[in-house]
């Protein structure tokens, strides 16, 4: 693997994990009695930036390297389903995550007052942040399974 692809893979993993941590922080803060809108707004913004960084770096690695160098190894290995189910699912589910994060950012950026005053908005934002966090954790674990299948 060239140095470029190593850096792209590291950027994808690190930015992705930090983004999941960001989603988790947002979730934790919404369930508090008093929501610090300014803090959550900043965390949500960084989460979106990190997700896009992970998207671009991971996408570049996936399109330019994974298909020709990694996929054949997994398919010929002892757990080929790591590609045909786990990777196929992960690469598509990952695409949903930035849109969930942007929606959460939108709520805090443009309608933060609603989170404080409207219980229905707060409940639905909490549910969405929780779902995004859990989805992010599952995607991270899927990445671990795929990495393990290469060895």
């Amino acid at each position, binding site marked *: 693997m060239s140095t470029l692809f190593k850096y792209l893979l590291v950027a994808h993993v690190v930015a992705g994990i930090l983004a999941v941590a960001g989603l988790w922080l947002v979730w934790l803060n919404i369930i508090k009695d008093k929501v610090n809108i300014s803090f959550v707004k900043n965390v949500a913004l960084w989460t979106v930036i990190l997700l896009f960084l992970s*998207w671009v770096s991971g*996408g570049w690695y*996936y*399109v330019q390297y994974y298909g020709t160098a990694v996929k054949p190894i997994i398919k010929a290995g002892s757990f080929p*389903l790591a590609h*045909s*189910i786990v990777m*196929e*699912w992960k*690469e*598509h*589910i990952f*695409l*949903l995550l930035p*849109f*969930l994060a*942007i*929606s959460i950012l*939108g*709520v805090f*950026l*443009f*309608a933060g*007052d*609603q989170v404080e*005053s*409207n219980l*229905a*908005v707060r*409940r*639905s*934002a909490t*549910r*969405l942040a929780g*779902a995004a966090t859990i*989805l992010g954790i599952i995607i991270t674990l899927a990445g671990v399974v795929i990495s393990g299948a290469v060895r």
Partner: protein
Amino acid sequence: MNRINKVCSIGIKITNGVVLGSIIAVVFITLVTLVAGLNPLIKTWLKDAFGHHWVGKSILSVVIFATVSLFAGFFESREGQRLAGLLNALFWITALASILLLVFFTYEALT
């Protein structure tokens, strides 16, 4: 006070547009993945047009999100209840899309 209320309601309008854009993007990603999986012509078209089917899905989803968010922002409601409804819809559609795609790829891999 009226001015503050107006600014707040415009914020809800923009957010409603963004969340609606996300819903449409999630639905698009799910449908195009299922259709391209079942119809090789669609997958080939995505590959020919964007270099890779995944890049095509990525770019098209961003374009669809941006377009819907921008235009929906003009027409969306200024009601907080509508925002709560849209966030709930995004939650359920994402959950359904995740399960649907998992079932689809499992079926494809095992048959």
